[in-house]
């Protein structure tokens, strides 16, 4: 039992973080808060990938004499790309929020729905 916890606690906490971001996205009405939630979800997914690349007693994958155990470089590369793409999508999402504020003069989801219905 202890073994299972020690082997997997990292994944479980990362899953908890992921789900807290997910919960923020689907339960909160404020659009800026939703985007913060998406970002938390995203960062947690990065943590999950990096966890999979981690090796016990390893070093960062920079080849040097005297070291033989390196972390897996492939997840690192994928996540580097994902971080930058994540910021691009965040920027686009925030631009949409500004545009919505301009058109509806609110960034609360239910008020936007109400205005849509009253048209």
């Amino acid at each position, binding site marked *: 039992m202890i073994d299972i916890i020690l*082997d*997997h*606690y990292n*994944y*479980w906490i990362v*899953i*908890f*973080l*992921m*789900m*807290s971001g997910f*919960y923020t996205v*689907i*339960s*909160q*009405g*404020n659009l*800026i808060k939703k*985007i*913060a939630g998406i970002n*938390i979800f995203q*960062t947690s997914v*990065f*943590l999950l990938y*990096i966890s*999979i*690349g*981690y*090796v*016990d007693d*390893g070093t*960062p*994958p*920079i*080849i*040097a004499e005297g070291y033989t155990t390196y*972390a*897996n*470089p492939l997840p690192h*590369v994928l996540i*580097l*790309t994902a*971080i*930058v*793409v*994540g*910021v*691009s999508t*965040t920027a*686009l999402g*925030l*631009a*949409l929020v*500004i*545009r919505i*504020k*301009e058109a509806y003069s609110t*960034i*609360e989801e239910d*008020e936007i729905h109400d205005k849509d219905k009253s048209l």
Partner: protein
Amino acid sequence: MIDTLIDITLLAFLTITAIAIIRINNLFVIIMLFGIFSLHSAGLFVVMDAADVAFTEAAVGAGIATVLMLGTLALTREHEEKKVAHRTRLPLLVVLITTIALVYGTYDIPSFGDPAAPAQQHVKPRYIDHSIEETGVANTVTAVLASYRGYDTLGEVTVIFTAGIGVMLLIGGRLLRRNRREDDE
């Protein structure tokens, strides 16, 4: 041992930050907490031997994303999330089911840091053994990013370009529209 201790401490900080973000209504506080969340995860990347990812996360995730959100806050002039009685039961149920499915899935993942895991047995030895003679770069992450998967990185530039165009299309005319409105008045 010390690695595990730092790992658990940072994960605990991340958990507290995530819960605080759900519960707090002040948008400025939420954004700052998100910056803290990113910075802690950058620390966690260092512990998990991903130095390059940690740099990028600290600069881009904690830096640029936070600044972008603060800019949005300034432009929308919204500071407080309205306290509405949201339906929390259905989201909670969805999240709970997803959590159970994901945790069930982790039983098939090899244990954390296992050197015999399939992820460590394939592709990786090829990169570690041959990247220096093939690319001449000691940092394997750089070698893969710029050489083996150079096209991916090129695609990434395209994504940033597209996002930039999108942002300009959405809010680029903002100033123009405001001036016109003032002229009309």
